[in-house]
């Protein structure tokens, strides 16, 4: 029986030690260190580029290079990520050559009519195996409103001002959802001013269903674990604002009253 007692003692000690470790520590003040380890960004013409490598290796074809910036000049996010059902994670979509040729995914536009088609001559235009290769024509962006990070372009301003006119839908007669509602999100840390979220800025690109209810719950103040740490792990705002939409380095675009950044 003594040994049983010992076993339970050990268990309690282990649980106690874990509970101690699980309590969230306040971030230590380290002036020489950045507060968050932001991901490193590639050059402006490569920002938002992906190397899609789902079945290409087995099919003995080079991975596909996809550039967000060249596509967003023509289409808003919702066209591909809602209507065409592209996942938000690289290689997360069941794209196949067959599906493309049948008019799904890339093939919805790359059909030889709207955009170049799936012909032998065009294989190497996407299947390059090289993430930098989609930088061609990046010079076209030179006149657009500038931004400090990402592609060096303030896409939101470019769209709002009509400098770019991407299509909203592939379905004729479909109207985009609008909602003009700005939300102030209190930061967890004292001294950090609230993040200001504009639905109107987002609905120019996105549909309600891109974010709700999977990425963000719709009930006020019930989205759990919504912290900068989770965002840096690619959740919530980080689903887009890490690698595609303007990156987190641009603190003041969300926390407008933040000083010194």
């Amino acid at each position, binding site marked *: 029986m003594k040994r049983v007692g010992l*076993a339970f003692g050990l268990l309690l000690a*282990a*649980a106690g030690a874990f*509970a101690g470790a699980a309590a969230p520590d306040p971030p230590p003040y380290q002036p020489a260190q950045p507060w968050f380890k932001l991901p490193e960004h590639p050059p402006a013409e490569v920002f938002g580029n992906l190397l899609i490598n789902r079945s290409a290796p087995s099919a003995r074809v080079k991975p596909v290079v996809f550039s967000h910036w060249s596509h967003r000049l023509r289409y808003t996010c919702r066209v591909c990520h809602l209507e065409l059902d592209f996942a938000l994670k690289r290689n997360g979509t069941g794209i196949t050559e067959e599906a493309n040729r049948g008019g799904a995914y890339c093939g919805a536009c790359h059909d030889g009519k709207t955009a170049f088609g799936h012909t032998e001559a065009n294989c190497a235009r996407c299947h390059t195996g090289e993430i930098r290769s989609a930088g061609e024509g990046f010079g076209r962006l030179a006149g657009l409103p500038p931004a400090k990070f990402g592609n060096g372009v303030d896409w939101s301003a470019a769209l709002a001002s009509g400098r770019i006119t991407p299509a909203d839908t592939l*379905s004729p007669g479909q109207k985009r959802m609008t909602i003009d509602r700005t939300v102030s999100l209190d930061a967890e840390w004292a001294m950090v001013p609230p993040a200001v979220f504009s639905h109107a800025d987002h609905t120019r690109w996105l549909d*309600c269903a891109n974010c709700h*209810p999977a990425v963000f719950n*719709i009930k006020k103040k019930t989205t759990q*674990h919504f912290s900068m740490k989770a965002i840096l792990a690619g959740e919530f705002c980080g689903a887009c604002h890490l690698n595609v939409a303007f990156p987190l380095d641009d603190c003041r675009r969300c926390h407008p009253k933040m000083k010194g950044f």
Partner: protein
Amino acid sequence: MRSALVLRRLPALVLVLLIVPAGPARSQGVRKRRPLPAEYGRVVMDNASTRNNVAPVVFDHWTHRMKYTCRVCHVDVGFAMQANETRVHEEDNRKGFFCGACHNGKIAFGPRHDATGGDDPSCERCHSLGKRPAAPELARLTEGFPRGRFGNGIDWEAAELQKKIRPANSLPGVSIQRKPLEIPKDYDIEAKVATLPEIIFSHQKHAVWGGCELCHPDIFTVKRGATKFTMEEIFKGRYCGACHGTVAFPTTDCQRCHTKPVVAAG
């Protein structure tokens, strides 16, 4: 001996304790995989199959809605709206209830032998989970149908209007033929969030498939304005979400309901 057993299991117990305080798995913050067009509306029924060493039944709504309206099965035949809630049994089917109302070898294929009889290839046409592709190819059978953005990739409402499909609204021997009731007019439902387009609800469009009884009075009471519901509840499968989210066009298609632009004040 018992203490030795506890000690032997100690690592496992510690592991359990380490996992439990981490709380339930997160279900938000990232986008989920949407079902493929042929999978949308698929229900796996395993009321008694696994228990009886038979593969569970794979039911596709789209193959059935091409031939019958929703209310034939969900009202006249009496299928519940939740998978496995109906407690369908082989015996009931063979007596002409539930699936057996049609799958009797006359209206649709049925079992070829009695329940004790040898190999019956027709069993596997429904008891098909993991055995064969669950349904005939969607693309082939819906060729030329009006396209929809989500769900099965088919606009079923338009398909019915264009007579690409002619779903029957009754089943001989099961349904009772009555004169159709007068259908109330379309009306607006105000969105709770300011500036969000209002909802136009059409009784006409719904009555084609559901009649009155599919929604009233269980899902929606009949007193105007008395059923208070929110989008959160719809996302959870209540109210409109009883159908729109898993079978009828999904809630990703916001504009199909939130369709009336808000007129700016002033």
